[in-house]
């Protein structure tokens, strides 16, 4: 912390904030906490896992989607654009329910699906949650990647071609790394947004940290305390994501003119 941060009014505000936290810790009802303590780490892990897995898989889909929009022929770029508009134009909650209740209600009608090895997986809720989150990431990041791929200076690609690099190699060595570098701050922000949309999976019975807090409320009729703790947990996770992306950005050397 630098000297500029420690101004008198900030010290007073921090003291007030500390007082509020202490008041919450001693005057609110936290008796339920020990009973649920052993379930909290697993629930937090589910949230982190859903965020990380959907971001990774979603980015893998987003790169081709962005490439198709940035440089593809019309029969690739039009479907990609339509897909992105549909995902970005409808609420994630609706997409989630469409996949879980809609697709989920179709599958049992086919005996060959019920008898296949996939059925024990398809009967659970988490594949639908992961699928909906992944498709949503792909839609939003596809748009981001389109801009990032288009933003790479054409001279870089021409230079690669002049050196005799094949198209695939120049894409993976020149075009994509520079585009990802450009998009990194945006992707960091989108990861926080993605983490913030994971509690929706609780509505299709996936037990993440949000649904655990709802269960506490149902069991004990305590409303505010679990929600406040939940907000703190999410804030810490958001802070960690921001720090992670700051570290990632600092690892990539960039020349500032």
């Amino acid at each position, binding site marked *: 912390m630098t000297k500029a941060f420690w101004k008198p009014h900030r010290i007073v505000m921090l003291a007030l904030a500390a007082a509020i936290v202490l008041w919450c810790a001693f005057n609110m009802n936290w008796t339920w906490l020990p009973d649920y303590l052993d379930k909290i780490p697993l629930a937090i892990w589910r949230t982190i896992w859903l965020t990380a897995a959907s971001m990774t898989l979603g980015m893998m889909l987003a790169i081709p989607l962005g490439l198709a929009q940035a440089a593809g022929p019309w029969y690739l770029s039009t479907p990609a654009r339509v897909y992105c508009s549909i995902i970005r*134009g409808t609420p994630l909650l609706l997409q989630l329910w469409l996949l879980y209740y809609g697709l989920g209600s*179709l599958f049992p009608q086919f005996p060959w699906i019920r008898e296949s090895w996939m059925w024990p997986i398809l009967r659970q809720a988490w594949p639908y949650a992961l699928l909906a989150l992944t498709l949503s990431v792909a839609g939003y990041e596809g748009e981001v990647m389109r801009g990032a791929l288009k933003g790479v200076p054409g001279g870089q690609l021409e230079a690669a071609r002049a050196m005799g690099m094949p198209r695939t190699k120049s894409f993976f060595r020149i075009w994509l790394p520079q585009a990802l570098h450009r998009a990194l701050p945006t992707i960091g922000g989108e990861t926080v947004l993605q983490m913030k949309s994971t*509690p929706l999976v609780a509505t299709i019975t996936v037990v993440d940290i949000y649904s655990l807090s709802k269960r506490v409320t149902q069991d004990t009729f305590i409303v505010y305390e679990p929600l406040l703790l939940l907000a703190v947990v999410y804030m810490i996770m958001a802070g960690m994501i921001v720090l992670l992306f700051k570290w990632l950005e600092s690892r990539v050397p960039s020349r500032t003119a």
Partner: protein
Amino acid sequence: MLGLIAPTAAASAFDLLAWSPPGWGATLVAGLWNTILIAFGAYGLGLFIGVLGAFGKLYGGPITRDLLGVYTTLVRAVPELVLILILYFAVTDAVNQFLVFNGYERIQLSGVAAGIAVLGIVQGAYSTEVLRGAIQSVPAGQIEAARAMGMPPMLLARRVTLPLMTAAAVPGLANLWLTCTKDTALLAVVGFIELTKATSLAAGTTKAFLTFYLAAGVLYLILSLLSGVVFGRIERWARKGQRPMAGGGM
């Protein structure tokens, strides 16, 4: 195919979506109306908070700035769903305590009012940031010139800062409006009957899940496409008189 989508005997997708009672068309449209109503209200409230917040963040005293910083950071770090639950209970509690304190009866807050208040507070944090950026893009010379002419702050904001920042703010505000229409779906989780909740009620009753969720998706999509057209027009209007970027103006 339609038989697959709607397993209830002899009910095709079009019968289910019909306007009058065996169909659920009227329910869905009523839900859509609620969605639009809340989105408009919340967006307006958010803009109001955003304008005040942006001016406070740029020109306010140190305490105002820090408090606004805490507000925008907190709201943007916590999931909307959790905020909606916290604010929903907190707002209802606060209103009721106020009423009881003044000797009135407790009331059940209407879903629309609570939804607008809650989503408006969330939107306000995002609008603050968008508008702050837009105000900063106004050339400092313009504001200094107005001050030099002796314009009082309110007149300056109304005549110089707000009109000049509109063009820079419109793309960000258009995004916020789309987020706002989609965030209304979160109110379904607290049981408010907007489009998503109405759809899930219809789907749960008729077991025609795909039909109804696809229909609702189309309604949301139409809403967002229409908004895109409207905001495109607003942006063109706001950029009226600006020199085109490529021309090397400014």
